[in-house]
């Protein structure tokens, strides 16, 4: 079987319009905006405290409506990656 993903309650979202716009959108759907992701312009790190921290499934709920927001160009729920030290 393919390895099962572990979904976190963190998201990467691409929104144009700067930090304010991102904050507004985050608040609208119940997320916390943890800021821009490094130097990747328009990419923001959202966290949703009401969504289970680790799950074998990508849970659906009111927070999922952000996917359909026209201002969201791209969104990715964060999956735990298995990384081993060499």
């Amino acid at each position, binding site marked *: 079987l*393919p390895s099962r993903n572990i979904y976190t309650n*963190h998201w990467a979202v691409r929104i144009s319009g700067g930090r304010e716009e991102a904050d507004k959108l985050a608040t609208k759907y119940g997320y916390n905006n943890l800021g821009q992701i*490094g*130097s*990747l312009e328009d*990419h923001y790190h959202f966290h949703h405290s009401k969504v289970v921290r680790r799950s074998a499934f990508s849970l659906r709920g009111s927070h999922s409506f952000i996917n359909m927001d026209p201002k969201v160009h791209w969104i990715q729920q964060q999956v*735990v990656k298995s*990384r*081993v030290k*060499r």
Partner: protein
Amino acid sequence: YIRTDQNFIYFNDPKWSNMWYIHCSDRSGRCRSEMNILAAWQRGYTGKNVVVTILDDGIERNHPDLAQNYDQLASYDVNGNDHDPTPRYDSSNENKHGTRCAGEVAAVANNSHCIVGIAYNARIGGIRMLDGDVTDVVEAKSLGIRPDYIDIYSASWGPDDDGKTVDGPGPLAKQAFELGIKKGRKGLGSIFVWASGNGGRQGDHCSCDGYTNSIYTISISSTTENGNKPWYLEVCSSTLAATYSSGEFYDRKIVTTDLRQRCTDGHTGTSVSAPMVAGVIALALEANPLITWRDVQHLLVKTSRPVHLKASDWKTNAAGHRVSHLYGFGLVDADAMVVEAKKWRSVPPQHVCTRTSERRTKYIRPDQILNSTIATSGCADHPDQHVVYLEHVVVRVLIVHPRRGDLQINLISPAGTRSQLLAKRLFDNSNEGFRNWEFMTVHCWGEKAEGQWTLEILDSPSQLRNPEVLGKLKEWTLILYGTSEHPYNSHYSPHHSRSRMLEIPSPGQERKEPDLLLQETPDEEEVDEYNGPCHTECGDQGCDGPEADHCLNCIHFSLGNIKSGRTCVSYCPLGYHEDVEARRCRRCYRGCEKCAGRAHNQCTSCRRGLYLCAEEHTCVEMCPLGYFPDEIQKQCLPCHENCMMCLRDADRCTACNEGYSLAGMTCVPECANGTFFHLEEMKCSACHLSCSTCTGPGMEECIQCAKDFLLQEWRCVPACTEGYYPGEAVGLPQQICRKCEENCLTCHGAGRNCTKCRDGYSLISGTCIINATCNNADEVFCEMVKSNRLCEKKLFRQFCCRTCLMTG
């Protein structure tokens, strides 16, 4: 070998004499310092003003060997979202990895602590990002920290090498790489150094690791002290170069800083090699801070060379570069790097030429080779894409297949250079195929791009499969990176690398291609009545039949005896050792898998279930005290110093030597009375004044009370408080405070020794009786209560005992 050099550098660091891979100070003559780091130092390059960071599980910034070079600005804690990358300490020391890597790069020299880093004046930082959920966001953040301040990012981790994973950077991490290359170092491009595939577990192929297969990372592999392939190394067409690292138990090890301000030689694998090259690149950046990320790769290609590294597939590509799937272009050469860097002219801009195969699905039939070709002019008709001289070559494939692990993929360049992009993976039974997965090779570096490129796919089922379900090559894309003009314009830069002159060809192998060797035929001599050809292993006395057991003598070795039958072999199988003089395979001692002789103490590896004792060269079932059986290397490895017994790892102590005691799984010095060993400060600190032995500074962490103190509820008190009385304790030298009877406020002993009761209770002959009165004691059952002596049982005391007792 390097001759001893008059102005030899000597440092007072305690492990300096163990750093065989840098110098030959021990005059043993077994010197392997072809990385020429000392020579680069002697030119004055030590990494000054270069900033390196380690992406890992943190860095012990107050380690005596790192503190001086530690750079706060090159550090961050992505897991904890703060600026302090100090690792999380725990009893298993699992977060030691980053600190070990950091020491190799920039451990301070001549400070009497541990070792000397390769760039011992460089600034070193750490990005803590492995000690928590690693996600695409975490990786992207880590790769994008201060790109204009940090020069080199070193990473010694990657996807699982379970032989069935195909994984790499996610979309955000890819963008972070690209951004770092485009904008980092103020446009010169950040430098990412990555530990190449590491087969900690068998059956993997590092082309399924998307980090080492990226053109933006410098993928580094490892060789042992003797130039052998370490047991853990995976072949890989994207490996650029190699350094020394750990190998078999008899190979010398690499020393570096360790967690808890210690030293270790337990840092192994390609985890060692990435930071080493980060250090070498730091020297080169000091020599020429203006070299770009591509210049660095060109420098490595130009200066790395095979020296004594043994690989069956060394070949010379059409540009004259020696290259192998194990070691890339060979062992790094720090001295050559700084010399070349000093006079380096940046290479022309990178062009990218992309060609996609025709969109016609081709079936991949088992045990047949599918060839698909793309002919290209190197995009000559698009000047801004025109590639004449190659750098990286990427092949993006879309393959559907019922069992991915059965596939082997090769790429042959127009000049005939063959790159193995993928080998079979026995454990990979995924049916996902490859969905636009990108393989990369550097083997065609410097060759001409123009011509016909051939993708060769072989499907060899390793288990029963439905023959009707065939694999399909949907399409593949060839992406050529390189320059349109010669990267080293000969008219203004000699660019003849000194390293070429240093090259020491390994005897007998260099100029011949391996398969040519096989094609050589033995001399044909007349033999008696059988006149057919002899087996290739037969010696000059010929044979009486075509097989190896028909030989009359052997070229290499004879195996077996007259009774069991004798045959000729080119090397002796496991359980035998090669008696070169007698040209015979001689059985090893019982239990030995490999040996150097027949005696019981000449084993070099052991059979299943036994472990090798390195010192005695014997195979044992149980490792002696102070050693633990290493399941991977199948040998008894020493426990950490101070450990008398350890479990599965040198650091997981279960018993300590004299003068040490266990703290978790670590042996810490036994502290004098009244002190305890403080793990984080690594010294004995005072217990609370009421304690004579404790596990911590607090009052509640006492184990034994100090003189004139009594233990009461895990605290030591000068005198027992109300509700307790001093009493003996079995096994304890001192008295402890014991609780008085229930409902008794003060007492001077257990049982009927109460002297004062709680409210609502009356003291009656030394016990506390509840004040409840019952009005019918006489009629009802006082007699019964007394006759049955219920009042002596706690449970029944509330039954009118007071009244009954009061009434006598």
